[in-house]
């Protein structure tokens, strides 16, 4: 399945919804979009992986790169993911200790309970 990318704003967070396969062929497009968002001023970025059905090391590298860029810009970066196969990938690579990973957009943005990303 082809990569799909869509952006929306939720409670001062920029949410990038990703769908399809993120691999060595499609990951450069994801990197490009994330760089564009940060360059355009987005500082609280959430990448929603709900629609992703394949994610490889190249895609993981792009996500780490985006997190580093936002850290330099005093921003925040988080992932939304509840699919067990993807969560296993984060655990095996120890990236679950690097990224804030939330089960839903509501959890990532805090949505009233203060548990979401903070600057």
């Amino acid at each position, binding site marked *: 399945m082809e990569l799909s990318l869509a952006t929306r704003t939720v409670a001062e967070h920029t949410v990038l919804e990703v769908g399809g396969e993120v691999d060595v062929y499609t990951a450069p497009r994801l990197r490009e979009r994330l760089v564009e968002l940060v360059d355009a001023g987005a500082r609280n970025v959430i990448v929603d992986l709900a629609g992703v059905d394949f994610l*490889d*090391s*190249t895609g993981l590298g792009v996500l780490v790169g985006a997190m*580093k860029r936002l850290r330099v810009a005093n921003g925040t970066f988080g992932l939304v993911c509840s699919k067990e196969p993807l969560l296993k990938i984060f655990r095996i*690579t120890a990236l679950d200790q690097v990224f804030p990973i939330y089960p839903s957009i509501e959890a990532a943005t805090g949505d009233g309970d203060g548990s979401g990303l903070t600057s």
Partner: protein
Amino acid sequence: MATVRLSFSPAPVHVRTARLVGVAVARRAGVAEELLDEVRLAIGEACTRAVALHNQYGLPDLVTVEMSDSEAYAVRVIDHAPIEASVGLAKLPPDELAAESLTDEALTTGVGFALLAGFVDDLQVRPVEDGPGTEVRMVWPVQRR
């Protein structure tokens, strides 16, 4: 014994094809359905690594994927890059993963190896017998048909 051999020019777009073929042959060979996601990811990682090495060294040579199902499902992914390029494969600890000093290439290589090692119980990385290059060999059990 059935063997399927696929060779492709070292372009990222072909890695998806290798994954698709690898999973199709695995299913046909009798690999358990619940292992197929891991097979797909591992073949993809091994091919991604081979493509990256060929591009790094400017090698136009084809990358080869060989699948056989004699007793188990064995997949060999063969590159032709200098052998020293394969040295230094290591899983990175969490504090290094997010370090500013780590290049994107080093991160992707480390993460890719962690995925291979994490998803494949029977994994070997060894020099090819003739000329430069490395063979990544992965084996999965098959169910009796």
